[in-house]
């Protein structure tokens, strides 16, 4: 089936540093998402993105977070500066239509020390 790739699979950084999580979505998809998951628990919505713009963001999407997809390249989540509570697995997903299936990547495990 369609594949969403996330790079890197694991990132370890010191608190206060900047981190960029990269996502290569399915090529013909138009909607992009980031979710946060702590310790295999609930998938928590962060943000969705369409046509170069953020459509909706949750309270978890703090001011230190930003997303972009310049010129159809990677869909990125940047956190600057990072905090200890940002440690989690971040999942990227893409969808051809907002009412349709989301295809998830394998996640990036972010460890903030």
């Amino acid at each position, binding site marked *: 089936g369609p594949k969403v790739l996330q790079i890197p699979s694991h990132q370890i950084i010191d608190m206060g540093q900047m981190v960029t999580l990269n996502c290569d979505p399915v090529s013909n998809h138009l909607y992009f998402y980031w979710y946060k998951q702590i310790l295999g628990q*609930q*998938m928590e*919505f962060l943000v*969705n993105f369409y046509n170069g713009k953020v*459509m909706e963001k*949750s309270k978890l999407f703090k001011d230190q977070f930003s997303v972009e997809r310049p010129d159809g390249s990677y869909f990125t989540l940047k956190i600057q500066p990072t905090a200890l509570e940002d440690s989690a697995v971040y999942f990227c997903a893409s969808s051809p239509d907002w009412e349709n299936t989301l295809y998830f990547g*394998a*996640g990036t495990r972010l460890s903030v020390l």
Partner: protein
Amino acid sequence: SQWGEENLQALSIQEGEDVTMNCSYKTYTTVVQWYRQKSGKGPAQLILIRSNEREKRSGRLRATLDTSSQSSSLSITGTLATDTAVYFCATLNYNQGKLIFGQGTKLSIKP
């Protein structure tokens, strides 16, 4: 069942048994999706059921949707050890275009 402030539900059954997982949701939705997440992987969709469908089947899976009670269920017949995973229901927030996941049910199948 999953949703709200409930902790992650856990079920443990023998291989070959049937199982039903329930989900209730709070806000209006036109779509309920069921996802399975295996250890160390991202969620993968199993079934998508729309508000005009009461039941949908896919192989050993059967999903139901009752919009009047705002609840959905996922049944697996003849479970296999490979069905061990966390199962999430997710509803689409129509106005915001976001998929909201429930707390999940951790299903363990003993061989």
